[in-house]
């Protein structure tokens, strides 16, 4: 029985650097294979929609935009980042990136259109209808 058993430890800790990460100023590096936001390559997609069928939360939709041309729309608010669509995709058109800073002010910015012009994936917010608050 020793009251104040931790005194030595806390005094030693006082001399150490704090471990807190000052988040917005100091970014945390995510592991390389972290399952974050998805990326999509149009040229690989064959429009089989297995990803749509396997998605547990119905977050992904594949639209046909032209002859053998597809785009993916992902609702980041619904996506649970399980990466099952990446595993399901037979052509490896989908991939998970380590991008985790996806928070947005306002729910409308969470629907993301993924398409690419030349194999580089660009993501632009979809022009979703703005929600008008009813008073």
């Amino acid at each position, binding site marked *: 029985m020793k*009251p*104040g*058993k*931790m*005194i030595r430890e*806390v*005094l030693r*800790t*006082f001399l*150490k650097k*704090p*471990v*807190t990460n*000052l988040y917005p100023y100091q970014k945390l590096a995510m592991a390389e294979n972290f399952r974050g936001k998805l990326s999509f390559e149009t040229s690989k997609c064959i429009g089989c929609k297995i990803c749509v069928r396997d998605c547990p939360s119905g977050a992904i939709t594949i639209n046909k935009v032209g002859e053998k041309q597809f785009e993916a729309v992902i609702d980041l608010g619904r996506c649970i980042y399980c990466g099952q669509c990446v595993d399901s995709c037979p052509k490896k058109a989908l991939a998970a990136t380590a991008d985790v800073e996806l928070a947005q002010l306002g729910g409308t910015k969470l629907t993301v259109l993924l398409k690419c012009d030349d194999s580089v994936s660009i993501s632009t917010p979809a022009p979703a209808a703005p929600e008008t608050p009813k008073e």
Partner: protein
Amino acid sequence: MFSALFAMLIFPGFIFVSAFGLAAEFFDRKLHARLQNRVGPPWFQPVADMIKLLAKEEVIPSDANPTMFRVTPIFALTSVVTAFLYLPLWQTHSPFAFNGDVILVLYLLTIPTLAFFIGGWYSTSLFSRIGSVRVITQLFAYEIPLFMGILSAALLADTWSLQGITEFYSRHSWLLLCNILGFSVSLIALLGKLEKVPFDIPEAETEIVAGCFTEYSGRSLAIFRLTLDIEMVVGAALLAAVFFPMGAGVNGPLRFVFFIIKVLFIVGLISLLRTVMARLRIDQMIRFCWKYMVPLAFLQLILNLILKGILFI
């Protein structure tokens, strides 16, 4: 007249002591955080908290007595600010010093505790009521060792004035060593008065939400928070004046610096103690106080009586 008003409102009264209280809160929080390997709050955090609380809407429970609910925080704040006026900091004596001020300060420090009790009781919430019963139960446990610890030091100095005690101990500084027991008992009892771990039973967050402050919000809560901060400074300054008279010889700004350092040292000790312990249960706290602290304080009292008999007949 004007100088008295200045002393009460600006220095060393309300304005100064509030700023010092908030600074001490920052010091306590920062040290606590660093001991826990965290970064801790920025320097303006206590001020920002205060501004936020003052800006918030104040909600008064419908069953509560609105007058009592609003008045008790002010009552508590006034008494601690008044207590501070009697403590010597800049000069050798405070502007209002008189023989017997150590007793007055001790009693003024009891008033906030009673105010917490009344405020909690009048807010009529169950958590507040349990909290206020705990406040008053705890008061009976720590008050006696605290009084005995401080008064036995005063007894040896043969004076009831803070100035006298300080002067006596700076003359016979070796006698301070005899008071170590009294100092430890008073410091631990002060933890109970300030409701800090391991004696934060009345506002135990994980049991009764916030104890007697549960229903308080906005301005009234801000005043209570400020009271606790100032109480910490006053308690630390009281212990410093009685047990650490170092620097009493020097005068002027240096003495003021000494005062600040002494107070922050005691706040640091409180911080350290609350970092390394778990909260006790109310029955354990009372048992601890009556079983160990009171006998120890009593021992100190007897020791000082004997010493006094031997040394100064």
